[in-house]
């Protein structure tokens, strides 16, 4: 596994819960991410899917050290980011950028598109000030935005254009790795297709590596070479795109896939449906044993008692289930 750019080992992120007005003390922990391990290879897209509250965004933020993980390691080119701080970490951040879900919330309303895009350059002192306008020009053409929009403010853009500005900002420092956190879920289907295609083009052109976080299985399946499925802070299945989508082994993955409707009448009628009961349990009070067992259609005694760990069932295909 020497071709991996990023390796995550047993990553944990616990958020403390405090109670008491005068002397707050820690009463509990929310285990947002609880022992997650995976690696991302150079030039690939790893898709991370899961329902809301499964901890997928937290994983993304932990990779970039925007949250400092409670335990575990994040190795970027074999350097452990978790131990880094200050200048050293800032230097690493140049290689890792992020694209956010809500382009409106993540762009300052008081800065023009050009200001927003050049801010990372100012922070990292990458190029002389005089070259900024040239760089803006380059970035605008990369994300296929018209240059005459450079001096506009975020509210003057359409949602798709705004997301392009967000992408240009991430690209400004020529990163190697980008965490895309639900980059298209706020967009209309046609615009969604445009942004997905843009991300694919950029990956090919600039040899980028993506961690693509989304709840939409169809989008993740389209863009990813490998996919990890998360449930309540743990990865329950990890494998090649086609392994996950054509031969899902974990009952949760199967249910998730069967819940997604397909825009084709004939195919939709022929599909087998697995209906899950109930809601996702709270991460504050996760079920015992395998955390999926209360909703699982094939759970038995063993599942209530002990939590299964990820095991390789076929080459590159890992599943955490006693019954798979």
């Amino acid at each position: 596994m020497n071709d991996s750019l990023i390796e995550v080992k047993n990553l944990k992120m616990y958020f403390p819960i405090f109670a008491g007005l005068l002397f707050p003390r820690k009463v509990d922990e929310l285990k947002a991410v609880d022992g997650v391990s995976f690696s991302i290879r150079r030039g690939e897209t790893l898709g991370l899917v899961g329902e809301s509250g499964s901890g997928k965004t937290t994983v993304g933020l932990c990779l970039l050290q925007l949250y400092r993980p409670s335990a575990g390691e994040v190795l970027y080119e074999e350097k452990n980011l978790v131990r880094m701080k200050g200048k050293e970490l800032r230097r690493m951040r140049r290689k890792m950028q992020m694209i956010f879900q809500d382009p409106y919330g993540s762009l300052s309303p008081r800065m023009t598109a050009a200001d927003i895009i050049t801010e990372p350059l100012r922070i990292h002192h990458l190029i002389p000030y005089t070259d900024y306008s040239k760089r803006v020009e380059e970035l605008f053409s990369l994300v296929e935005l018209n240059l005459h929009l450079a001096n506009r403010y975020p509210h003057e853009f359409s949602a798709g254009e705004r997301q392009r500005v967000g992408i240009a900002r991430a690209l400004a420092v020529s990163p190697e790795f980008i965490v895309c956190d639900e980059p298209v879920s706020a967009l209309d289907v046609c615009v969604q297709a445009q942004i997905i295609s843009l991300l694919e083009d950029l990956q090919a052109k600039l040899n980028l590596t993506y961690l693509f976080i989304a709840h939409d299985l169809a989008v993740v399946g389209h863009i990813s070479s490998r996919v990890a499925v998360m449930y309540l802070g743990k990865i329950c299945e990890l494998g090649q795109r086609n392994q996950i989508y054509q031969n899902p082994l974990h009952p949760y993955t199967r249910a998730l896939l069967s819940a997604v409707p397909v825009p084709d009448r004939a195919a939709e009628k022929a599909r087998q449906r697995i209906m899950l009961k109930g809601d996702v349990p709270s991460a504050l009070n996760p079920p015992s044993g395998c955390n999926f067992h209360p909703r699982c259609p094939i759970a038995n005694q063993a599942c209530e008692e002990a939590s299964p760990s990820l095991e390789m069932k076929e080459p590159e295909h890992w599943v955490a289930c006693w019954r798979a």
Partner: protein
Amino acid sequence: MSNLLLQVKDLRTYFYTGKTITRAVDGISYDVHEGETVALVGESGCGKTVSSLSLIRLVSYPGRITGGQVLFDGKDLLQLSEEEMRHVRGRQMAMVFQEPMTSLNPVLNIGEQIAEPLRVHLRMEHKATYQRVTELLHTVGISDAERRYHDYPHQFSGGMRQRVMIAMALSCSPKILIADEPTTALDVTIQAQLLDLMTGLARRLDTALILITHNLGIVARYADTVNVMYAGRIVESGRADTIFEQPKHPYTLALLQCVPRIDLGQLTRLSTTEGLPPDLGHEIIGCYFRPRCPFRLGRCFQEYPPLTATDNQHYYACFNPR
């Protein structure tokens, strides 16, 4: 085919803001039969929500319904007085909104909220109401109904809140249920649960369902008839099977091709349609989809294509259909 229940004829809703008139809904017509599921599909801003609000006359200032007819049981709803309209809303036609948090009252417990239409429309007694509400809660899959009756909206998860909304909408057994993006804010597994519940209940009560969504997968799974909307107009309509097998309008085709699908292998590329829907505040000459259309003709620049019918109730507005 079952009886015709609702007929929307040339409905127009315009928004008058300052000097501009935004034609949010510009002459749409469709029929709803008893017990049928009708889908309205389109991108955001295409007028699907405004058109459904117009049906029950909930369009607020500066919007105005400026023309058309909504024939329900032989009466034109647009001609009713506000008093008469109140007897239709909730009783004959009910609505489930997209945001279950903002459409529930945060300071009333959910039992009271579900009971309200029962008291108002059916004049139920206190005890009977309580019983009916717990029954309804049970029907929509909220267990422990007696205790949950007294809970407030914030104590429910998003999916559960939407169940409460469904219970409320179906409380008076309406003839028509309008569901405006009922599951867009929810996770896929919850989405599937709720849509199955809603369509199942609608079928059991013989309620027609008007399903407003941008998700073509949901349309394929649940709808009987489909109306594709673009820029305030219906560009294609017909039976769901026909629309999915032989889409005629380039916009329908674009919608179908630009969504990634999980049942196929990895495609190399999504087909993209450049550009955005037009600004409805300006007068547009010709077909509204023309600037984005790969199949446009010279004629498309001059006049808006009329709805053309093919066999088996398939209509499309295009000069150069596929």
